[in-house]
């Protein structure tokens, strides 16, 4: 992994530890609960308006499945169409590659600053930092992304990067930082959302009119026409996509769709799933360059950065169908309590827990597949029907395998799993263990309940009483009181012995 690779934030602790800080931050939890609750309700209403919602999900999932199976073919078609329309296509194998290409393209214009449309792909490769290293300043123009950038912060949500910030915090950031980056915040700025939005508008307007180069991501690209699409809510993206002379788009290779007509289903699903709106306020589509209209120079950087490896995994590849709507984040009870930073990755929440380990290798994000109760709310919410719980348990198995390969001594957990596996695969051993458990419990239980225990058991017993196991397991009771010859069925010598033990 190169230093510029931003998929995982180096130095971030594993999820359980990172979550601890977030849980202690009551303001953060209140912000998250309010924001995710609001979006969740809006999404449900917006989805319920369409009588064919389930059908749309199925169609979208099918298009994605089909496209991913022949990704190479569609990407070559896209390259051909973009080139024919006057654009230039570049292929980037990894983050360093992509950053090198974009830096080179910006430098070639002689400019030293760029405006940016909010983009997960450029977050993923750490483009802003790479440009800064080359002496180029990148200005985020999405309101939430601007708040994150000015605050020297990291995004904690895919769609609402500043979801963890309250309005008074935003006011403080604007007053403190805007002057450092351009026009300062107006004096006497209050924390009313309208006032804050107006301050951002004034700050950004100057940049839109000055900058000659823009960098964007892409929500979709149609292989047949070479059309690239960006959807957004504020119009700042539209400014970046139309005003500058040079437009550089960095796009993950999985964003390609076979045809322009496929946009139909996704432009219905995406806004309803992400913001609960029927349509995106701004949907910008462009095909190469057009004389006298918009940028005169267009570059499309196609980014792999772990995607081909992900594609090779039959179960895991479905994560590449993600359209970055964030519906899974907003319904996830774990995300709601920890926020995005705990995931230590540019992709947080349930989709991050399956995408990040695949992009960077499961051994580099081993705690993420376990950052879920497998409750399945994410799968139900996903507009393209990514079976996130299925991928999570698949990746858990890979994480365990990776650990087995990398270690000479098994972990405590592996030993425990081995031991319980032995017990649970034999009725004799299980009966003996039940007998022992009941005996042991009687030594520590009071009034039939086990209270707080020391050591590793404190993780469970610190907050919950546990009923003491009863003296007689069901199997023992059955043998004693119910078993009649002839109804035993399948009893073996081993099982006969099982009943005699306790």
């Amino acid at each position: 992994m190169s230093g510029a690779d931003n998929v995982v934030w180096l130095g971030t602790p594993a999820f359980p530890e990172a979550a601890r800080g977030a849980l202690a931050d009551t303001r953060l939890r209140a912000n998250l609960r309010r924001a995710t609750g609001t979006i969740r309700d809006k999404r449900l209403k917006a989805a319920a308006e369409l009588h064919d919602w389930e059908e749309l999900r199925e169609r979208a999932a099918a298009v994605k499945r089909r496209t991913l199976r022949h990704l190479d073919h569609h990407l070559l078609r896209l390259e051909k169409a973009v080139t024919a329309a006057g654009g230039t296509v570049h292929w980037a194998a990894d983050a360093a590659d992509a950053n090198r290409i974009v830096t080179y393209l910006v430098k070639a214009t002689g400019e030293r600053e760029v405006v940016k449309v909010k983009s997960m792909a450029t977050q993923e490769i750490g483009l802003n930092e790479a440009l800064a290293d080359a002496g180029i300043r990148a200005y985020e123009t999405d309101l939430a992304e601007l708040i994150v950038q000015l605050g020297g912060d990291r995004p904690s949500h895919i769609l609402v990067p500043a979801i963890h910030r309250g309005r008074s915090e935003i006011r403080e950031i604007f007053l403190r930082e805007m002057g450092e980056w351009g026009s300062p915040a107006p004096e006497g700025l209050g924390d009313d959302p309208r006032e804050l939005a107006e301050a951002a508008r004034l700050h950004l307007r100057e940049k839109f009119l000055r900058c000659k180069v823009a960098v964007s991501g892409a929500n979709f690209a149609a292989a047949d026409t070479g059309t690239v699409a960006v959807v957004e809510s504020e119009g700042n993206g539209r400014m970046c996509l139309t005003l500058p002379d040079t437009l550089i788009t960095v796009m993950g290779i999985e964003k390609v769709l076979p045809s322009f007509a496929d946009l139909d289903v996704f432009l219905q699903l995406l806004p309803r799933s992400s913001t609960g709106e029927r349509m995106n306020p701004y949907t910008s589509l462009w095909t190469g360059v057009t004389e006298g209209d918009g940028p005169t120079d267009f570059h499309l950087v196609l980014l792999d950065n772990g995607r081909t490896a992900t594609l090779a995994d039959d179960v895991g590849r479905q994560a590449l169908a993600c359209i970055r709507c964030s519906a899974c984040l907003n319904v996830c009870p774990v995300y709601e309590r920890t926020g995005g930073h705990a995931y230590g990755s540019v992709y947080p929440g349930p989709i991050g827990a399956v995408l990040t380990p695949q992009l960077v290798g499961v051994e580099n994000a081993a705690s993420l597949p376990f950052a879920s109760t497998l409750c399945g709310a994410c799968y139900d919410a996903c507009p393209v029907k990514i079976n996130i719980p299925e991928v999570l348990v698949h990746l858990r198995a890979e994480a365990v395998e990776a650990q087995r390969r990398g270690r000479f001594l098994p972990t405590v957990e592996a030993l425990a799993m081995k031991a319980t596996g032995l017990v649970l695969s034999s009725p004799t051993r299980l009966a003996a263990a039940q007998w022992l458990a009941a005996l042991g419990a009687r030594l520590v239980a009071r009034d039939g309940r086990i209270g707080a225990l020391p050591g590793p058991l404190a993780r469970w017993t610190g907050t919950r009483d546990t009923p003491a196991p009863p003296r007689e397991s069901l199997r023992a009771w059955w043998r004693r009181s119910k078993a009649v010859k002839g109804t035993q069925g399948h009893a073996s010598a081993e099982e006969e012995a099982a009943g005699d033990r306790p």
Partner: protein
Amino acid sequence: MRIALFITCFNDTMFPDTGRAVTRLLERLGHTVEFPQGQTCCGQMHFNTGYRPETLPMVRRFAEVFAGYDAVVAPSGSCAGMVRDHHRVVAAQYGDNALTEAVEEVAPTVYELSELLVDVLGVTDVGACFPHRVTYHPTCHSLRMLRVGDRPLRLLRAVKGIDLVELPAADTCCGFGGTFALKNHEVSNAMLADKMRHVQSTGAEFLCAGDNSCLTHIGGGLSRLRTGIGTRHLAEILAATEGDTR
């Protein structure tokens, strides 16, 4: 019908009362219940924690032990889901064709209790009586893996004397999640706190669910806080009758 009881290792060890309730209930409805003594565990803990090779012997054993019954009933949504959805994954990855065939044969005969009652046996009023205020938590795997829908609620509504009250944010996970409760115990506790707040807001005497694992987690918290709210597995409420409301 010849119904096999898959008690699950957890209920077998910790909650034999639930197994006795399932038996009493099904026998009251006129069915024969058998308990294959060779049964052990569905392997869910190992599977969900990533220890797949260790799951294989349990999958193999389950397919052998429960072959040939009209129906297999499990008083656990998550264990029933494991058997129906994931045994074939383990069989395909580590087993052989014979095991895959055996799994495919057994899996469709396995039902969670409310599914068995409503879909297979065709009853919603099981003649139960439970004169208490009860709130119901639909466990995630029953809700989203098995899609039991409102079957448990239909069964509960038919119980005589019951005062069934709605649980706010019922379909939000309680934070148990198997080994999640240990690996991410702090997040688990935060989720538990919210679930308990909602349970307490109902004024219920008992919290009911179809999975004793979730109930152990929520009930353990309620007990530690001395709330006085008890837990009852769905089977225990459905098995209770007038004069015998265990």
